[in-house]
């Protein structure tokens, strides 16, 4: 998962919803929410995990279509490693 990103996208109208469904439909993505692209609707947050090789393309598509988005996880592998860091930090404290 090194370099993979999770995008947070909020389509603001039905046209953006259709564009987003179309973009994501042509990429192999892992939707975190909603569970499936058919459930994407306006003003509802879409969190999507995108492979490293596809991130630049998605950035470009979203900018080109003026769809509001942000990146809430910029390197997924780093976050995976952080998730289970509590055990070692507790040991260090004790």
């Amino acid at each position, binding site marked *: 998962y090194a370099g993979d990103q999770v995008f947070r996208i909020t389509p603001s109208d039905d046209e953006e919803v259709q564009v987003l469904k179309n973009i994501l439909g042509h990429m192999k993505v892992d*939707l*975190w*929410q909603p569970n*499936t692209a058919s459930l994407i*609707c306006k003003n509802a947050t879409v*969190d999507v995990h995108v492979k490293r090789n596809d991130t630049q393309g998605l950035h470009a598509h979203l900018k080109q279509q003026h769809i509001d988005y942000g990146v*809430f996880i910029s390197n997924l592998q780093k976050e995976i490693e*952080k998730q289970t860091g509590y055990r070692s930090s507790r040991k260090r404290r004790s």
Partner: protein
Amino acid sequence: ESQYDYEVYHSLEEIQSWMFEMNKTQSHLVDMFSIGKSYEGRPLYVLQIGKRSRHQKKAVWIDCGVHAREWIGPAFCQWFVKEAINSYQYDSVTRRLLNQLNFYIMPVFNVDGYHFSWTTDRFWRKTRSKNHKFHCRGVDANRNWKVKWCEEGASSHPCDDTYCGPFPESEPEVKAVAKFLRKHKKRVKAYISIHAYAQMLLYPYSYKYATIPNFNCVELAAHNAVTALYSAYGVRYRYGPASTTLYVSSGSSIDWAYRNGIPYAFAFELRDTGYFGFLLPESLINPTCTETMRAVKAIASGLLKK
């Protein structure tokens, strides 16, 4: 048990050996049994928590880990068992609950998927079954119940994350739980399924916009549960029918449970709302489980009053 760390995530092997340990050391309150085997042949273990009684007690079912990558689920089920046992002596609410009810706790529903998410693919969500016609593996176990089969919010394509399986209960894990709940449906008065990511408490229906017949009772129970949850750390959970609060779907285990006569059926969507996604840090296991424990106790206490 005191050595066990409930504030870190555990592998399937660790969780199963913890279950054996609980069964051995807490035999006055805990009983352990298997309800079947997974697709890959792993046992599907359930813990029964409650004071032994000569008469048949009413029961609450809680399953965790339907979706493999939602690791906070199994952590909560373990937390629940730990808290129930440890507070039995000094907390009158817990004592009353365990004296008068049995809790069936299934810490890891999707055992194959959970193991796979630990060892191979952190973001795996489905089971690991394979249909001989296709190369893709797995079914979304929560879309494999005979509710409204494979319509909106599900997929009939095996490579999709929301693939609902070749037929309802095609997954041995779902079949085993359905069989157990059917067998005990006269005693099981509440069904709770633990999920993650949205901070919500959902109840039927999820497959249609209609209101359930006992809406007022269930709505009140949900309101009391999220109020109790909020009282811990001020974390707000939305609550309501799954179809309108989250989205309409093909139907899930809560709809199935409700249709099979279990009057209180809930799905918890635990923390968080997307800051960590499925990677909720271990440091948040404690607060997440503490607040959820309050909510589950509120539901069970309301049930007892009924």
